[in-house]
């Protein structure tokens, strides 16, 4: 092949591959445009006032995933009618949680080079009270029962040069003083009764008991542990092994969590369990599918969690005591929180 032929072949390939690439991008762009149009069989979504302290009945807040102009906005439905029309707030969040009139919203911010992320504390009318920069992709968020503390977890991947090694970063902020513990890995860890140091510690999924005590996941050496944290003493103490994404029941006696079960496919290792903190007895729920979410207690008996669905994810419920069966509560929603 002489130089001319080679250049011709290259040119042809550039045009061909360029066409394929452009077509793929345009198709994806079209698809994302379609997502901005109301889907025919989807739930009704309209704008309205969304507050974290409803005057009437109890409300369920979610990140709305239904296609249409309000996709990704925090929306509310009456807790008793989760299938009903949704009221969208205009506030977009990737992750969200709320309690006692305080909301925590993890957002992406479009940057010139790449997206950056931030944790935004919202007041009862979803107005911004404070912004914290977040060093990675948001994954979990929680507000303490009093509304005074907020916690969030992000995945930090450094950047492309860090290869495929991920780690988590969990922060807790006080909404009264804006004091920030931006990395819980700096807390003193006691594992199996002894001080423990390791550079591979990862912490994620805070769930608050009150304004001092909380629970979270600690991972080290390829294992995961349930830890009890003390924000004042700045300590973390392991309580139990093989616990991820804990969620404390409103009565403070039990923790719902993801357990890596032996024999399950490596692709889908997690099942939803409930741990009794007094007896350390584990109970499997009737949800037998793989769960990769921090469950939410709807009262003292029922768990709410997300599973992949046709439009991102759907919310499901299952009794916390191992009885009954899993039921779909609402479609096209994620990151639930109860208000009122």
């Amino acid at each position, binding site marked *: 092949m002489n130089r001319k032929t080679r250049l011709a072949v*290259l040119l042809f390939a550039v045009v061909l591959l360029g066409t394929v690439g452009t077509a793929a991008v345009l198709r*994806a762009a079209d698809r994302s445009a379609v*997502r901005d149009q109301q889907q025919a069989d989807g739930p009704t979504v309209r704008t309205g006032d969304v507050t974290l302290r409803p005057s009437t009945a109890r409300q369920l807040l979610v990140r709305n995933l239904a296609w249409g102009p309000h996709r990704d906005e925090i929306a509310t439905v009456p807790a008793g009618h989760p299938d009903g029309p949704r009221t969208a707030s205009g506030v977009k969040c990737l992750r969200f949680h709320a309690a006692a009139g305080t909301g925590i919203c993890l957002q992406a911010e479009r940057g010139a080079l790449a997206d950056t992320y931030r944790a935004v504390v919202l007041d009862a009318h979803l107005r911004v009270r404070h912004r914290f920069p977040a*060093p990675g992709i948001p994954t979990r968020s929680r507000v303490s029962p009093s509304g005074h503390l907020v916690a969030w977890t992000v995945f930090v*991947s*450094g950047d492309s040069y*860090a290869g495929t090694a991920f780690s988590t970063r969990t922060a807790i902020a006080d909404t009264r003083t804006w004091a920030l513990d931006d990395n819980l890995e700096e807390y003193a860890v006691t594992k199996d009764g002894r001080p423990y140091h390791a*550079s591979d510690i990862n912490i994620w999924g805070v769930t608050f008991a009150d304004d001092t005590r909380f629970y979270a996941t600690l991972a080290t050496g390829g294992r995961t542990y349930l830890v009890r944290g003390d924000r004042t003493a700045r300590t973390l103490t392991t309580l139990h092994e093989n616990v991820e994404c804990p969620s404390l029941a409103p009565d403070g006696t039990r923790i719902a969590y993801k357990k890596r079960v032996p024999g399950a496919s490596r692709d889908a290792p997690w099942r939803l369990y409930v741990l009794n903190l007094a007896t350390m007895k584990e109970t499997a729920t009737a949800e037998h599918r793989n769960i990769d979410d921090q469950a939410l207690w709807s009262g003292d008996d029922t768990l709410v969690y997300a599973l992949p669905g046709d439009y991102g994810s759907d919310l499901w419920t299952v009794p916390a005591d191992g009885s009954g069966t899993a039921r779909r509560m609402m479609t096209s929603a994620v990151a639930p929180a109860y208000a009122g």
Partner: protein
Amino acid sequence: MYLADSRNSTTRTTAAPGSTRPGRRPAVPGTVLALGAVSLITDVSAEMITAVLPLYVVTALGLSPLGFGLLDGINNGVGALVRLAGGHLADGGGRRHKVVAGIGYGLSAVCKPLLLLAHGLPAISSVLAADRAGKGLRTAPRDAMISLATRPEHRGRAFGVHRAMDTAGALLGPLTAFAVLRVAVDGYDAVFTVSACVAALGVLVLVLFVPARLDTGQPASGPAPARPALRDSLALLRRPGLRRLTLCATLLGLTTVSDAFLYLLLQRELGVPADLFPLLPLGTAAVFLLLAVPLGALADRIGRRRLFLAGHTVLLLAYGLVLSPLRGPVTVGAVLVLHGAFYAATDGVLAAATAGVVPTEHLGAGQALVGTGQALARFVCSLAFGAAWSLWDGRDALAVAAVALAAAALCTARLLRTGDPSGADRDPGGADHDDRRTTEGAPR
């Protein structure tokens, strides 16, 4: 072996300045530019994926990606073995550098569209492992081809040009990926498709513009040299020059703290805001990009091993700066400049130095040996540094690493000097001839 070596020395004489073929082999030959273009294009494709993969896994698939970290270590070990195999295979018979490199680039290219089909973590991890195997396979033959295509006295600059192009690709990749996501929100499939197209283009440039048979002074029509046996590849370590270089690269590698740890220390010790953390590696890469060519050229003039050693001294300065009481953005910037300069003074320069102490028919295996030695040493250093960090803390661990690096650098300086009794550590000159004599005297 003798035949190739003696012919090679003839080439060297004829190709020397004032040769009868002026202009036939410029300082940076077309083949090196072509290989640089292949690396640039391939890195755009690869870094597009690595930049969006965490986003894809967390926001599109809704998975928690912690499982990836565990597989990383295994992949590193396998990658090192694959690199040795790639180097050895590439040296086979009628010079299969291009074929083996092509298979490596091709394997990685095929992995990109496979990501469209992989949805669980194990499937994605398998695709990434195959992608890395492709990278391991192609690295040594590619460096061998750069060495073969370049006049020995210009190899430092040639490798500098290659590394600069490679790094440019690494910087462009994430920008391309985020541009696609800007046009198509959640368009991860589009990112994978574009990445696959770019990777295919890289393979095509290799096929079209990199000659299959590089001018190594061997008559094209002559009998093909005997295929080197695996034994011969390993026996390379009996060559004093290569053994010393591998030893030095390994020794220094054992005290080279991995990038991730260094950035983490910068963030904790020098107070880099969390949201700027992802920019730290970009700083290093940008300095590497700017300095790779000038430092490569400098290596050609003052000696590659000397610059390789100087590069590690620069790294030692960076450690010192992190340990010093100095704080603030200027210090962070200075550490990144030193870190980037360290890469520019060592990465391509080591490959160029290696080429000077390996016979042409074993270039692939030689590059793989030195590269693998260094990579495994750095991996061991990572494990040790992690353990030290747990036992004491990051600062103390770095202080220990700095002392170890200083000791390793002193040893290396001694080793490399004894390797070169004439005192001139110019690879193309004394040391090279020295080495050849030793081999000719050695039993086969």
